[in-house]
């Protein structure tokens, strides 16, 4: 079997047939920032945080197939700036009030902000009006924090076989909808033990009565950087757990 390789920031990285730039990088222990990507589910390519330069062109590493003769740039000041801007836009288009969020310290959006040394939102805040759905006895849906990564959509479809979630609307009217006659979570098939209830990278879908279990200083990203935590989680071949 011939050994295929690509170059990422000058490092030679082997890849296998079917690999994306992201999967090859992760296996080699190279962190590429991402939010909508989770190796357990079909790549989505929506958040654009994993944008890398492949032979001079911007591509999303989570969807772009690795191939011979690829020179990939990942950790550059230009891409960091681009990713920081994307993260700032994600923050200002939702209602992300970290001090009041029980996901704080375990939130990937927050941690990617730290990783990129994002200090503020830069842009004017939208402060959109979004519905909170607290109807379910065990699960809270706070759309203020949704970043439309569709991980819950994919997890419900691919892991739980239920199709509880979908994204509806366009542009600023984009919103997460629940597949039930009333549109409420309580009338859906979602259960707290479902992957979809556990996969949200931010605090939009939370299992109730589990908030603030780890004190400040002992939360995931208090102890580890996002790069360390992400690689440790995703380099595992099977059964990677999400926080």
């Amino acid at each position, binding site marked *: 079997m011939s050994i295929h390789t690509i170059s990422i920031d000058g490092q030679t990285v082997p890849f296998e047939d079917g690999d994306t730039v992201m999967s090859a990088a992760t296996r080699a222990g190279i962190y590429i920032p991402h939010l909508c990507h989770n190796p357990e589910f079909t790549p989505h390519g929506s958040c654009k945080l994993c944008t890398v330069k492949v032979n001079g062109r911007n591509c999303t590493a989570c969807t772009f197939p690795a191939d011979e003769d690829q020179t990939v740039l990942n950790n550059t000041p230009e891409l960091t700036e681009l990713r920081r801007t994307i993260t700032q836009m994600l923050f200002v288009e939702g209602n992300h*009030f970290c*001090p009041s*969020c029980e996901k704080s310290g375990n939130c990937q959006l927050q941690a990617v902000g730290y990783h990129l040394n994002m*200090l503020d939102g830069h842009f004017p*805040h939208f*402060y959109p009006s979004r519905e909170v759905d607290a109807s379910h006895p065990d699960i809270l849906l706070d759309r203020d924090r949704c970043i439309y990564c569709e991980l819950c959509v994919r997890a419900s479809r691919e892991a739980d076989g239920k199709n509880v979630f979908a994204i509806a609307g366009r542009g600023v009217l984009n919103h997460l909808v629940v597949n039930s006659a009333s549109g409420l979570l309580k009338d859906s098939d979602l259960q707290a033990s479902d992957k979809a209830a556990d996969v949200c990278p931010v605090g939009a879908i939370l299992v109730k009565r589990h908030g603030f279990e780890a004190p*400040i200083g002992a939360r995931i990203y208090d102890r580890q950087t996002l790069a360390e935590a992400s690689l440790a989680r995703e380099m595992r071949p099977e059964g990677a757990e999400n926080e």
Partner: protein
Amino acid sequence: MSNKIKVATTSLAGCFGCHMSFLDIDERILDLAEVAEFDRSPITDIKHCSDKVDIGLIEGGLCNAENVHTLREFREHCKILVAVGACAINGGIPAMRNHIPLEECLEEAYLHGVGVENPRIPDDPELPLLLNKVHPIHEVVKVDYVLPGCPPSADVFWKFLTDLASGREPSLPYELVHYD
């Protein structure tokens, strides 16, 4: 004439937690006093800035007309304006009222809230008019630096001020950047 840097601080719609955190630099405040002197600040109880201040630290967002007035006056007197904490940077906790109409907020607080006695919405002419929404300060004035956190830790204040006092471009290392 002292050649110490002049530092002013003030608060808008916030909880004063950022000021409390600043004071958590503890005995290092004596080292700071070697190179800096406090101008307008709750610490000195000086109500208005001197003509020109080198560094102005401001916590809190804009929730009423008085906040806007205070911010503009403060900006005018500060060579370097620093937005301190979540409320100044993104409106913070006060901005959680932004998707609720102001009338409903006032009615809930003063008319229909649990335990309200003698329900009446305060209307004294001395009370500053509330803004429809809470805004971060960069939407009204130019901000030179931001210190994230709710509140930023004492080490953040210390690192930032000592960087500036030594003539270095201020920068926060990874471990000091927090949004909560």
